[in-house]
């Protein structure tokens, strides 16, 4: 609800405060009344019935997807027509467009919620402690009795190591490339950008076959987790590079100028000003890359190969990974193994979620360790946070940041605070 600021108070105090009135026409969710809901529900129902009669009874078409599409189209048309009876045409068009946009949002949200919910529902019930502490060395697919004795710890270790190494190589290389593209420039920019763009269209299995054919087939190396990291590195490089480049591009040019005008070299400018300013965006970029790498299965078949036994050394010998184990389980005929596959998928999702949360927390706070401790403290003690928000400073105390008092609890010893 939009309220107007009270007008001049030079006259005597009015007996009643001015009544706020709404300005502007758009229908906002909070204004959504019973009448609006009724129109929406009636449109949904009548379009359903209409399309059902026409689609299945009159034209004898079949198929659920065609029906849903026709229903939705008829619903929009009907909703628009009905709304024009209540408000004018422009407002009706506006509300219909709102419905389309909201549908899109709910569709995406629904798909994600459905996938996560389905995997959780099917997987959580089959989680047991052994899954996290054992490997599959005693695994016999036909023997139901060993199913509770096996675990996927070896695959968790493999995935963490392979993705970790891939990110440890990939993120610095990608950031360096992005800095080259955006900060250094020059003749090579166009060709590098073209190559990076072309790489982002590379099918993941090709990356695996590429590493296989130049390293395994030529007997340079045997299967190992590190080879998987190399394949994953090829896959995350273009994504992280392009995203980082976009993030660097929105760092204001004035900051670079300010730094150079202080006598900083171009390297110092990038290192101390541009990259710290873009830090949170770069963490998002790295996350996207890691999210790509965690779920890849195809390139692993050719590189880390898979292994039922625990192998903690990523540089020697075949190594398991969660997607590979998942793939193995799903292909087995027994229902019990399919259940294990869901449990494994749940672990994979949880792993990605933990990584995301971790990176978000790290990305939000400032780099000094003192500030990190202070943030943890403020998170653990919500009362301290609310107390600090009474900071009288006019422009300080921005939402989401720990207040100054908490930050100064444990200052970095290298940077003494001023009195």
């Amino acid at each position, binding site marked *: 609800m939009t309220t107007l600021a009270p007008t001049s108070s030079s006259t005597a105090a009015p007996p009643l405060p001015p009544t706020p009135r709404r300005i502007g026409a758009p229908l906002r969710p909070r204004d959504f009344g019973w009448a609006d809901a009724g129109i929406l529900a009636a449109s949904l129902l009548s379009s359903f019935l209409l399309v059902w009669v026409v689609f299945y009874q009159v034209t004898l078409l079949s198929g659920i997807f065609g029906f849903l599409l026709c229903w939705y189209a008829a619903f929009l048309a009907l909703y628009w027509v009905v709304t024009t009876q209540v408000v004018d045409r422009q407002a009706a068009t506006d509300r219909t467009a709102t419905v389309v946009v909201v549908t899109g949002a709910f569709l995406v949200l629904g798909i994600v919620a459905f996938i996560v919910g389905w995997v959780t529902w099917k997987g959580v019930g089959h989680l047991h402690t052994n899954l996290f502490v054992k490997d599959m060395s005693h695994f016999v697919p036909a023997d139901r009795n060993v199913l509770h004795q096996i675990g996927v710890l070896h695959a968790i270790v493999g995935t963490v190591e392979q993705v970790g190494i891939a990110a440890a190589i990939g993120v610095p290389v990608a950031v360096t490339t992005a800095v080259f593209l955006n900060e250094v420039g020059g003749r090579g920019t166009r060709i590098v950008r073209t190559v990076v763009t072309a790489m982002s269209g590379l099918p993941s299995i090709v990356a695996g076959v590429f590493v296989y054919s130049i390293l395994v087939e030529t007997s340079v190396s045997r299967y190992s987790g590190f080879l998987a990291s190399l394949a994953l590195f090829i896959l995350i490089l273009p994504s992280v590079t392009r995203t980082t480049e976009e993030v660097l591009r929105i760092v204001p040019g004035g900051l670079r100028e*300010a*730094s150079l*005008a*202080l006598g900083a070299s171009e390297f110092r400018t990038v290192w101390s*000003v541009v990259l710290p300013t873009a830090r949170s965006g770069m963490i998002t970029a790295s996350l996207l890359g890691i999210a790509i790498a965690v779920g890849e299965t195809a390139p692993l078949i050719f590189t880390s190969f898979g292994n039922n036994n625990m192998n903690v050394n990523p540089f020697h010998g075949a190594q398991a990974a969660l997607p590979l184990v998942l793939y193995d389980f799903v292909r087995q005929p027994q229902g019990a193994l399919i259940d294990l596959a869901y449990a494994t998928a749940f672990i994979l999702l949880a792993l990605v979620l933990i990584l995301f949360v971790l990176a978000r927390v790290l990305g939000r706070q400032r780099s000094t360790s003192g500030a990190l401790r202070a943030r943890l403290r403020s998170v653990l003690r919500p009362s301290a946070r609310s107390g600090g928000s009474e900071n009288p400073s006019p422009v300080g105390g921005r939402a989401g940041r720990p207040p100054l008092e908490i930050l100064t609890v444990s200052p970095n010893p290298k940077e003494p605070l001023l009195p």
Partner: protein
Amino acid sequence: MTLTATNDRNTVSDVQPTPGTGAAGLVAREVCAWFSGRLVLEGVTLAMPRSTVTALIGPSGCGKSTFLRILNRMHELVPGAQLAGSVELDGTDIYAGRLRATDTRRNIGMVFQKPNPFPAMSIYDNVLSGLKFSRISVSDRDALVEVSLTKAGLWNEVKNRMRELGGALSGGQQQRLCIARALAVEPRVLLMDEPCSALDPTSTARIEQTIADIADEVTVVIVTHNMQQAQRVSDVCAFFLAAENEPGRIIEAGPTDVIFGSPTDERTSDYVHGRFG
């Protein structure tokens, strides 16, 4: 002589920054500037005496800011920028091949039109950023921060907020933080490119006070569109003008009271009295 923008930028040299401290005089001789082959500034010769405030005035697009950026070698950062002539800092040409641009910029600081504190750094770190970039160590950092902020007239407002981010300040405070940041490396000349154009009158007055306070220890060159400001803060004034499709030139330069009181050129008189521009 025409220098290309990049040929001497990364020259490795063991030449130390121009020796000496305290305010230094700047002399520009026959400076011409090009952007991608287009001449934008021609034959500018101007002396900016030690410990004075020089104001560069003139309508938009006459090359004042370009000239200012030539004075600390920021001009060469623009791709396709070229230059002729020389700029001498206490008699040493800053464009001589052996000198590094970074050393020049440390001696000749700059404050920009739009306040640009580093958003990822606290107020404290912002002030010290120039030293950090140049790897200069200071025995008492806290004292330096206090002195710099005091010179910029900001200390009392921020002394209890040292750990807040620079972006949390108001626009006028941010600009004074930028001045403090520029002063912390102890430049010998400070260039200001319309430092008050984005600020309210109160903040403008604070910054003008700051300019008056620091003029003893650092030579100030300021670009401004505000005639009253030029009159208030400057000792020397240079009037730039560019005729249509022609490069900018200095029409008249001299003591501020002469430029505003009895200019010899009619165009100067028209401009300072607000008859055009």
